[in-house]
């Protein structure tokens, strides 16, 4: 019982189950197949961006820029396909690469020029959004390509395609963090950068790559975002960084770095999206939804911090009982 309570997956999983139960009980339409596949679509972009947020948080950084990066990337993607006639597969790859480039820029400023991540990515949050408005006179680009919507709304074996992207990317991230030297170094650099340097790790390079991965995830997010509405817009992705960071934090990732688990981030993303979905189904206004998101973040972090103490109390009680 005690070991179970201390296991890092329990708190986020319990939160997810409670939220799901409440949603299912209060909202009749929640369990409809239509709504469930809708959920998969809704969660996909947040969850994919949250992979990047998790890597950056693990190295004790923070990335505030993916929402703006996505706006910029959807514009570039939409214009290059619609006006330059670049074939869709190539444009997709270019967009992801460009996303990685934007992340690399953040990484360069943070890791090599040693400007705090909060500042570099806050600046990028502002600058990337501004750049997005430079394209097409700041107007959205609609009807980008006939085949584009299929990327988002298509199904395979009856399940929506974004579900497959999600599973593949999370499996890859899980593998990288657990079974590769780079993944281990990510945890080490976040846990103690001094010790990492003195253990022979190339600390800055690791930090740089973490930001680059976050950028690439924003690139994938941008393609999905553009596919969802067959358009690009400088107004896409507002507040997405907050949801992505919240997903990681609700999943138990420590903003101090070095602690966190990618599967828990997925659980965190699902929790957020289910809450939003339930509120939507009950016609709760967006303003209230964002307040709820704030409350969830604080509660999740608080519960996670108290969890060990609750465990200690139970452990102490059990020990006393054995004695007497």
């Amino acid at each position, binding site marked *: 019982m005690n070991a179970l309570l201390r296991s890092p997956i329990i708190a986020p999983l319990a939160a997810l189950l409670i939220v799901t139960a409440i949603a299912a009980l209060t909202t009749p339409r929640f369990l409809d197949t239509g709504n469930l596949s809708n959920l998969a679509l809704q969660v996909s972009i947040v969850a994919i961006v949250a992979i990047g947020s998790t890597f950056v948080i693990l190295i004790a950084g923070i990335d505030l820029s993916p929402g703006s990066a996505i706006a910029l990337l959807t514009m570039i993607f939409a214009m290059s396909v619609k006006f330059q006639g670049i074939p869709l597969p190539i444009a997709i790859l270019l967009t992801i690469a460009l996303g990685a480039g934007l992340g690399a820029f953040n990484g360069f400023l943070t890791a090599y020029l040693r400007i705090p991540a909060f500042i570099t990515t806050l600046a990028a949050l502002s600058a990337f959004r501004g750049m997005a408005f430079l394209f097409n006179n700041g107007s959205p680009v609609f009807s980008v390509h006939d085949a584009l919507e299929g990327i988002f709304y298509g199904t395979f074996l009856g399940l929506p395609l974004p579900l497959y992207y999600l599973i593949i990317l999370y499996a890859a991230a899980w593998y990288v963090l657990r079974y590769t030297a780079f993944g281990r170094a990510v945890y*080490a650099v976040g846990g103690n950068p001094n010790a990492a340097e003195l253990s022979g790790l190339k600390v800055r390079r690791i930090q740089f790559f973490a930001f680059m991965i976050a950028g690439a995830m924003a690139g994938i997010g941008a393609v999905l975002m553009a596919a969802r509405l067959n358009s690009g817009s400088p107004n896409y992705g507002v507040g997405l960084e907050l949801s992505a960071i919240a997903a990681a934090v609700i999943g138990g990732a420590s903003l101090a770095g*070095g602690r966190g688990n990618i599967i828990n981030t997925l659980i965190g993303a699902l929790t957020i999206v289910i809450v939003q979905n339930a509120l939507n189904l009950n016609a709760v206004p967006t303003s209230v939804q964002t307040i709820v998101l704030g409350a969830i973040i604080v509660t999740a972090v608080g519960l996670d911090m108290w969890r060990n103490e609750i465990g200690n109390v139970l452990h102490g009680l059990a020990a006393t009982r054995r004695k007497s």
Partner: protein
Amino acid sequence: MPDQTNKAVPAWEVRNLTKRFAGIVANDSVSLSLERGQIHGLLGENGCGKSTLIKMMMGVHQPSAGEILRDGQPVTIAGPTAARAAGLAAVFQEFSLVPTLTVAENIWLGNLPGHRAKVDWQTMRDSATEVMARLSVAIDPEATVADLSVADQQLVEIAKAIATDASMLILDEPTTALGLEEIKDLHRILRKLAAQDKAILYISHRLDEVEELVDCVTVLKDGRVVSTAAETEVSVDAFVAAMIGEISNHYPKVDNVRDKILLEARGLRTANRVQDVSFNVHAGEVFGLGGVLGSGRTEIARALFGVDRLLAGEVKVDGKTLRLRSPADAVAAGIALVPENRKVDGLFFNFQGQPNMSISKLARLGSPAAMSLRTEERLTHELYDRLEVSASAKDRLVGLLSGGNQQKIVIGRWLFAGARVFVLDEPTQGIDVGARAAVYTLINELTAAGHAVVLISSDDNELLAMSDRIGIVNHGRLVDIRAASDVRKSDLVRASSEQETAA
């Protein structure tokens, strides 16, 4: 104030103090008496119950049984504030100063003179100056604490403790971060406080220092007093005998020096004050670096390890000149650094022992794209056994381990990496006698295997006993290299006093 109390009644006494935590007995009927004007040493290995005892005296824990007496009268100490009011003051290993505030502000923090919201700055400065005068130290009360040296910060801690007119001062490992000269200063100040009729309880791992300072010693083991103040002879051998319960060879030095030169440093110079440092270390040899804190020993280690860039000179391992651009290059060449401050520079507190040990050579776990966690488990558990890491320490986050086990894990990292040159910077600092013995045995194993060891230690006895040759460092220069058997403790002390006069 006329002294009406009977001299025969100790200022403070603890009588049969017992503390149980969830069924574990941390202190078992501990008794001590602390006389006015006396410096009382308290010794024992980590986990012997020293901290619990102090915490009960300072009101952090309440005793399960027994009593605390002031001037012969039982008192209840409800909490830290009550402890201060009763005249108890403690200086702990971890500083409790606020770095961004001034010395005076720190001394009076929580007790600021003045009326309600308005602080009387003049009184605060004057009384801080007065406290400093009592200690005969010249620290500007207006200075910001962050700008002070570690030694001065330690003195501010003590000033803070005595500012409330405590009748007893408890010091827990106050010299961990201090150099020889600074320790001497601290001792002088403590003697002065004792002469002002304060009772002092002094805790330290440095036995030679305790021998020099204290009037009597109580030794704890497993939560019990194993040697009372009346019984304990004030000598390092007697301390060790009482603490570990047997008289063993304190320093089990084995001579393993071979002919082959493994490490060569030629004309090293760094921006960090290292100047023209040249020396060789043979396979199987322990090369000691002596000198005071701040003499440049740690900086030499940093230069060897590629942390500080070499402005001139070269480092060779096994005759091959290294390209040292970063620690990664040093690690690749088989150099290991066990840093002075393992908490800040050594350990990954988000990891258990196993990944802490494997991190410098993940290549041993297979391809970087497919590490085998099973191999990691097997290899690191072999190391646990070899280093005699306690069974309870395996599979736990390293933050929960004792200092000794933590240090074994940092050293284990370099055994895992297959290093051949070991730079050990204060490897026994803050670890107990049992774990020290394990570190010494390990040094012998390293040299027996033909590895080279560069040993930096502020513990002169350790440095003299464990080194084959010693280089004396002064102002970043290597001023003398001699066989350890030709170096007297007084030479090391003299080297440091020369530094003082030169500076």
